[in-house]
């Protein structure tokens, strides 16, 4: 992970909090009707990473909902399963917004395969732990974008996504029996974000076969 001093950390944390508070339902609702954000320079990377990560998150919720339904519920009540479904719906909306921005450059089904460890789904605790870890990773990248993206449209959209992701984290904490706010979010920088996401991404079915070396 790239180092960050306390001042930078606090600045980014405040920036993220401001963006999160500036974002809200009215803004979220408006985003779909607007023209797409045109990310400048490297800002496109936030959206590409985000779209891929939201796909991973959707795959996580899909499997978690399947496992909690078909395999003895894993200790989730119907109301709690409903909360997981709401979180999934939130991610689907994030993905829709990111795809709206990326348009033809958005990742597509078949570009890669999502592979989540089986151990993630063994218990209620492991499901919630993974959910929080993934949501914090995603929120951390959006938080980095809120302060380091170069254009205002990108920062605003990432702020709205961050606010929504923060709500998901709170909900998962509550399901896990922890306080809704279990500490400040920290920004996640490109190398850490890339390495973390790549753990869950395998080459697609048409990709060259992996053979030692590269």
């Amino acid at each position, binding site marked *: 992970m790239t180092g960050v001093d306390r001042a930078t950390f606090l600045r980014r944390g405040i920036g993220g909090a401001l963006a999160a508070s500036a974002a809200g339902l009215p803004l979220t609702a408006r985003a779909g009707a607007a023209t797409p954000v045109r990310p400048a*320079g*490297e800002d*496109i*990377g*936030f959206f*590409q*990473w985000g779209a*891929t990560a939201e796909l991973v998150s959707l795959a996580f919720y899909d499997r978690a909902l399947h496992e909690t339904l078909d395999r003895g519920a894993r200790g989730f009540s119907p109301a709690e399963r409903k909360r997981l479904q709401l979180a999934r719906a939130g991610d689907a909306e994030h993905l829709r917004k990111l795809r709206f921005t990326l348009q033809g*450059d958005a*990742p*597509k089904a078949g*570009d*890669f395969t999502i592979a989540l460890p089986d151990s993630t789904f063994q218990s209620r605790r492991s499901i919630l732990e993974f959910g929080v870890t993934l949501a914090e990773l995603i929120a951390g990248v959006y938080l980095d974008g809120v302060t380091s993206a170069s254009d205002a449209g990108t920062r605003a959209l990432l702020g709205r996504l961050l606010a929504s992701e923060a709500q998901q984290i709170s909900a998962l904490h509550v399901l896990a029996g922890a306080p809704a706010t279990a500490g400040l979010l920290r920004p996640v920088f*490109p*190398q850490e974000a*890339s*390495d973390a*996401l*790549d753990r869950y*991404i*395998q*080459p697609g*079915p*048409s*990709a*060259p*076969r992996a*053979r030692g*070396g*590269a």
Partner: protein
Amino acid sequence: MLRKPSFLILVAAAAVSMVAALPVTAHATTVYAATSLRDVFPRIDGGMTFSFGGSNTLQLQIERGAPADVFASASPKEPQALYREKKCGRPAVFATNVLVLIVPKSNPAAITSVYDLKQGSPKRIAVGAAGVPVGGYTRQLLARMRLGRVLTQNVVSSESNVGGVVTKVALGSAVAGFVYTTDSKIASDRVRAIRLPTWAQPPIRYEFCIVQRPGADRAGAQAFVNKVRSARGRRLLDAAGFGLPRR
């Protein structure tokens, strides 16, 4: 003693002139193909006449009437453009690839990750030019990883095809370069490949099409296309490190 060979030469010359006068000449089918296919295509069919180069350059040559019968490109963009211009038949995907970062075997800059390219003093790196597929894919990948500055912070050699990138790195003129995994395999005695994240890989799809021009050898072109798509062709592509589309 000298008369017999002279006679034979005359007979041969006459035969050649007769053959040349025939409306359909017996010649090898000409395949214009991306440089990254230079190793595997002759293995699939050694009887073709090959012209390898950057896909964008080959596209331009075909647009200007070059005598190609088949065009095989490292991206869909070029054959799709020719198809729209009615200069080739409908393109089809026949292989896929992924990008890797290569360094010389000696790895003088001690590069172990693409992120090393933005650390320390400027380095000499080789990439495909923006118009050539490998260059476009490289820029896409770097943008996804928010590493676009790698191309402005370092001393960058912009190559007209992927072979140029491999050569620069293999000879030590560059300390790193972005190529297809298949190229790293061909030069594996001189370069070392460093994996790039799967999530950031742009989809790399090879497409080919049968060129439509007066006098094109369409039968020969179709035969070559069939060989590439055959079980043997797919086996050879796989062995060379390419990915294969579903049938």
